């Protein structure tokens, strides 16, 4: 059964958490209607927890972008709102069009990334709570610093920036570690949590556990496709937001277990063409992937699912977190993305690569054609698809299908 989520009103989330009995009721209804598998069940519980922590009375609301190490927030029992993830979820709910419309008197240029335009629109419409604290990295995404600044202007909140240098060396590592530490200490003081460093170590332990399960899940995926890769484009939301929380551990364990079980039952999908997918994908409702699957083409691995960071040394929390921030390969320069792609293509035996260009994303789209050229030079058929993650008006479906179908004919 499908829920018509497009009619959700801005105060809906606040209402859910306002009465103690509504919250479990809604959760129960969602589970009853959606009949989620064990993976989706954890996401529902996690989402409900985020709502409870952020829309309740006296909540400390922290907004952070997807490149911040979320472990520092979970350590303080803060469930951060990642507006980019909220923007993708709103697209899935069918409410990104109004948010993109609402934002037009604040963000004039449609040339800016639609994810960030949409999130400012969500704030303006009242879908997101008023933040107490905003913390954002200025790399690799170039839009976040501006959209978060706009949010702080619109809704208030203490605006903080983690300056992430382009280069990764000992100096920049210590510099970023120090910045994360400063933000963590400031936040700890603000929420008044005792033993904050021990709590951080605990969150990092959870993060290591979740990481271990994701590594195992990715390893199992090499044995065959039992879960469509497009679902993993959705799971990217959990990769961005759940590390450091107990839900992260539960989610990636459930994912690992589900893959393991399906492999055991040999529930393989009818894959004829294996696609390695780069960047994220459309989050609004579209038949694109069903159509793609009908042609026998399945995503076997995604750039964003790669565990690019090392296991944390919990005795060196800030250095470990800084390493994670500085070593993001999926959202990095062309050489790192290329190496990552070659690794994924070889490990998952992909027949071709789809590089998805998000409108207005300088980090992703800026180097996509160079990346494609490098892949083609290695004999890997590759195509760049200009589309949009959240704005379906910027997603000419039929043209995109023709390009993808042509690409499938090339690799056949």
């Amino acid at each position, binding site marked *: 059964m499908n829920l018509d989520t497009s009619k959700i009103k801005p105060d809906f989330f606040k209402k859910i958490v306002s009465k103690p009995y509504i919250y479990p009721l809604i959760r129960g209804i969602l589970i009853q209607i959606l009949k989620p598998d064990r993976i989706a069940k954890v996401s529902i519980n996690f989402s409900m927890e985020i709502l409870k922590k952020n829309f309740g009375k006296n909540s400390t609301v922290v907004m952070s972008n997807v490149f911040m190490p979320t472990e520092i927030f979970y350590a303080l029992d803060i469930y951060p709102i990642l507006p980019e993830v909220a923007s993708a979820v709103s697209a899935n709910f069918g409410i990104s069009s109004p948010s993109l419309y609402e934002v037009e008197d604040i963000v004039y240029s449609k040339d800016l990334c639609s994810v960030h335009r949409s999130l400012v629109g969500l704030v303006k419409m009242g879908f997101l709570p008023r933040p107490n604290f905003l913390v954002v990295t200025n790399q690799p995404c170039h839009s976040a610093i501006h959209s978060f600044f706009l949010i702080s202007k619109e809704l208030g909140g203490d605006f903080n920036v983690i300056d992430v240098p382009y280069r990764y060396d000992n100096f920049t590592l210590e510099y970023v570690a120090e910045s994360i530490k400063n933000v963590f200490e400031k936040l700890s003081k603000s929420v008044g949590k005792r033993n904050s460093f021990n709590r951080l170590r605990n969150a990092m332990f959870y993060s290591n556990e979740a990481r271990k399960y994701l590594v195992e899940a990715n390893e199992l995926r090499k044995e065959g496709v039992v879960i469509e890769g497009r679902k993993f484009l959705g799971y990217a939301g959990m990769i961005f937001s759940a590390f450091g929380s107990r839900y992260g551990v539960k989610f990636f364990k459930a994912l690992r277990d589900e893959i393991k079980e399906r492999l055991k039952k040999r529930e393989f999908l009818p894959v004829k063409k294996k696609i390695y997918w780069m960047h994220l994908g459309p989050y609004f409702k579209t038949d694109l992937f069903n159509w793609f699957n009908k042609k026998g083409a399945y995503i076997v691995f995604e750039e964003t699912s790669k565990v690019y960071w090392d296991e944390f040394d919990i005795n060196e929390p800030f250095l470990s977190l800084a390493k994670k921030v500085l070593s993001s390969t999926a959202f990095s320069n062309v050489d790192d993305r290329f190496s990552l792609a070659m690794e994924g293509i070889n490990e998952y035996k992909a027949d071709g690569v789809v590089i998805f260009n998000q409108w207005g994303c300088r980090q992703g789209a800026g180097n996509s054609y160079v990346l494609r050229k490098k892949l083609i030079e290695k004999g890997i058929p590759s195509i760049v698809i200009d589309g949009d993650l959240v704005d379906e008006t910027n997603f*000419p479906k039929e043209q995109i299908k023709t390009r993808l179908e042509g690409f499938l*004919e090339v690799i056949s």
Partner: protein
Amino acid sequence: MKYFMGVDIGSVSTKVVLIHVNEEIKIVASKVAPTGVRGNEVANKLIDEILMEVNLKREDLSLILATGYGRINVDFTDATKTEISCHAKGAKYFFPNVHTIIDIGGQDSKAIRVGDMGEVLDFAMNDKCAAGTGRFLEVMSHALQEKLDNFGVLHKEAKNMVEITSICTVFAESEVVSLLAEGKDKKDIIKGINYSVAKRALSLMKRVGIKEEIVMTGGVAKNPGVVMALEDLLKLKISIPEHPQIMGALGAALFAKETMEVKSGRDN
């Protein structure tokens, strides 16, 4: 003796080609008509007209294969192929040494690189707008109140060229109107328009890599002005089929033949 049909339902026109395969492949008939709003209906009408002309029935056709934007929702066949593969196939039929194809249709333009065997190696298509397509030329023709058929002759007669800076069809239209108001020569503007389309085509060709022989297909290939402009930019000769518009439909007919051959091979 077998008959195969290829149907290319484009955004502007629908093209149908009937081929006959015996010891060699022969194009028996072809037809072109505006697509309008009912591609399927127009295609069916053209199919029936061709069959009537050559005194055949639908049952005499071994297979019909559809291509073009309207290929998905047709009621006369399930066999489809993209226009990318079909244009490559059609061009290869007439020009065995082809390695690069530039196809400019009503709504999109594409550059296709093919290997020695005619296999598609790579392709690039225009962005999400009508810049550098037949639609762009149509709008310009309307703005200039000059028939599109005259664009080639007037291009040749131009003494200078007025550069069209905007690639957006709508903005380019207002640019052309302004240029006319400034008293610029219509022929010089037309030359600028043809070069504007050629430059867009060239950028697509560069993406896939240019290797001779170069073949141009699609309705815009009938405009000698664009062909001349592109040849000038490339500093290379471009081969044009006698009927560039039907290359996609011809390719579709050839794919229909191959599809049946594969099927027969499997059945045997």
